């Protein structure tokens, strides 16, 4: 049995250490908010936070997490940056199919936490690894700016 701290809770589970965190979350713990898109760190759908930093859970073996804190989309609303991002996402109606958006919001929340007032280059640097097949990029950029400025829609 192994343990992980996820969204502030200690979770106990049984999985081999080489198993990517993504599958532990989704298939073992049933936390399906984190998505599978490519499995090779090219799309960002699986993004979670490890100690507050955005990491691709599809290529991070669970054994390598150790006792660092994991935050997932299910828990990101409890962080100030995450809540701001979620609100801006809804205010600006960013979402289409929504499949990529867990990862987008996780990446945006990590960006906002580290860089409270990101410019376009900061947004590019933090978000270019997240693909949105529905093409919501224009609104993602606007939502991050709104979350940073705290403006209401």
């Amino acid at each position, binding site marked *: 049995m192994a343990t992980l701290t996820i969204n502030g809770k200690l*979770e106990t*589970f*049984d*999985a*081999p250490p080489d*198993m*990517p965190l993504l*599958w532990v979350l*989704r*298939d*073992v*713990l*049933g*936390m*399906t*908010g*984190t*998505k*599978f*898109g*490519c*499995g*090779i760190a*090219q*799309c960002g*759908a699986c993004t979670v936070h490890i100690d507050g930093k955005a990491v691709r859970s599809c290529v991070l073996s669970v054994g390598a997490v150790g006792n660092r804190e994991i935050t*997932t*989309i*299910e828990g990101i609303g409890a962080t100030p940056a995450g809540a701001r991002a*979620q*609100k801006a996402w*809804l*205010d600006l*109606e960013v*979402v*289409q*199919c*929504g*499949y*990529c*958006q*867990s990862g987008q*919001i996780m990446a945006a929340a990590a960006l906002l936490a580290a860089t409270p007032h990101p410019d376009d280059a900061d*947004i*590019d640097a933090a*978000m*270019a690894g*997240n*693909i*949105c*097949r*529905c*093409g919501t*990029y*224009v*609104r*993602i*950029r606007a939502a991050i700016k709104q979350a940073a400025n705290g403006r*209401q*829609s």
Partner: protein
Amino acid sequence: MNVLAKTPEVSRRSLLGGGLAGAFLIAFHLPVRASNEPVQPPDSTDGKFAPNAFIRIEESGRTILVMPQVEMGQGVYTAIAMILAEELDADLTQVSLEHAPPNDKLYGNPTFGLQVTGNSNSIRAFWKPLRAAGANARAMLIAAAAQQWQVEPASCTASKSKVIHTESGRSLSYGELALAASSQPPPKDVPLKDPSQFVYVGQPLKRFDTPDKVNGKAVYGIDAMLPGMKFATVVACPVFGGKVGTVDDTAAKKIPGVQKIVVLDDMVAVVGDHMWAAKKGADALRITWDEGANARIGSKEIWQDLRSASEKDGAVAKSVGDIGNGLASGEKFEASFELPFLAHAAMEPINATVHFRGDSCEVWTGTQIMTRVQSEVAKAAGLPVDKVIVNNHLLGGGFGRKLEPDMAVAAVRIAKQVDGPVKVVWTREQDIQHDVYRPVYRDTIAATLSDGKIAAWKYKVAGSAILARWLPPAFQKGIDIDAIDAAVDMPYDIPNFHVEYVHAEPPAVPTGFWRGVGPNNNVFAVECMMDELAHKAGKDPVEFRRAMLGKNPRMRAVLDLVAEKSGWGQPLSPRVGRGVCVQPSFASFIATVVEAEVDERGEVELRKINCVVDTGIAVNPDTVMAQLEGGLIFGLTAALYGEITIDRGRVQQSNFHDYRMLRIDQVPKIEVHVVKSGEPPGGIGETGVNAGPPALRNAIYAATGVALRRLPIDRRLIAAKKA
């Protein structure tokens, strides 16, 4: 180990809202069956007012709207709910949404007679039936109240889920009226609202499906979780049509968590305790394939075939004037345009979860074609259709891929050999290499000019007939009406006009609908040719088009507006160009201008996009804008990168590293302007996809003088010539 340590919570979302839509707090009820609750018969109406297939009002006042079309990001759930609620005069805070069960009779798309979501026609097709459904229900509720109050129904009005008797100020809520309304006779010819009375339709309301999509609670097909469920992934023969030869699963079986190897004739599935075991097991399989005849086929042969087919005469789809004479008088310009195979690559890889119980079968998936999934699953399971339950989900992108039932069928074939439910998830690699691809097309247009206008236009489309496979009755007289859709439906006035279609199926490669469908190809060829002809005529591309839009005022109005908004005609730096695209497809009128820069090395930078749309009544104008923004990016992605190539019968691309997507840092400002209109709603979901590629290609033409005739854009052709 318990794989169901937690089941994803499926519950009402928290109430959120803001801005204009802040007044409408919608409770969106996600389908509960994903968590394996007992299935209710679809027509169970006990204790409810259920005047039709779309509306259920409970005595509590809760109003359930059943969604005949599927939500794959296009915002259709919100739009459908808005239309129903508009005529029903429902209070949106009391509304919940439910996915419809499979039933062509009740939920079939009126255009197809099938329960299918596609061809950008959800709103077009359901606009009237949904309004009628809402209005009828409202009339019954009013009748029930009037009866109770002993007043004339005409003296009552409805608003926010209440019936009000204006004179006396009495009111009854829909919940209170539900029972009585059930026994009202169904009314006839209830008048619909005048658009000026609309309270919801036309407002940029917040979407009902989004709150759960920002907190991880939304349940897609891939998220289905059932007690005792196993997880599987597949390795299909890399060569189309090939079969499994021998399988050595010794190493795969040794992987912890691998439960079973299921060998089918064309694929092998590894079933495990979780996807990781299945995936590792799949990697460890040693399979020899019986590749079959297709192993000889490559892109080169496919293009050779298509080019020679496109030289033949086709079936005539439309002919106006005298094309022979028209082409004979004046200098003839001819060009051929070629489009590659494309994969859909929806972000949610294809998947299906199946519980095969011997005498019944239940499926959890996200599909655009509910009833076909049900009937194909029944066939594969060897069961009557009524023994197959299909639970639909939100789709993590559809784009036409989920108009096919193959994933559910494969999952059933696997599930037949597994005890209990099994979720089958394709890896991205398997998804891309076993798609149903947007066909290769070759279109040839010959035209003559006279007085700066087009005198004759002969357009020949050569490519797959997807309808011949997908909906055989629709394929008649050798013409695929989808493949020539926007070739026939031309916005320009041309006296001698002729369209032909050559049915040319590529060998080996399965083809299917891809967002934008037939017009995707037609609009590209037409709008590229328009720019080349404008060039020959020595005219500005916008002016050239404008002069031939005399009979098409809606088209001309959006073109004028986009020219103004994009600063058309204003000077640009060297190697920067603007390109325009005009398209009337899906009963919407859209004009788009893309501004792009081509650097010395041939790399293309998108600088600005303007788009003006007249889609008739825009049920939710914000959704219309979002669809165009996203569609443009989808189309531009294809123009810049999209190409599936075949070698030895295999797809050479496999994942996002070699099947590239536009990323946020490459996307410019996109301005969409929605024209106010009282016309019936047009289609919108696919239009942006079709606008992007020709507009970009024409911008490159303007920037470099190079008239590209193939996609994706070949950077080598547009790099500055070396000194």
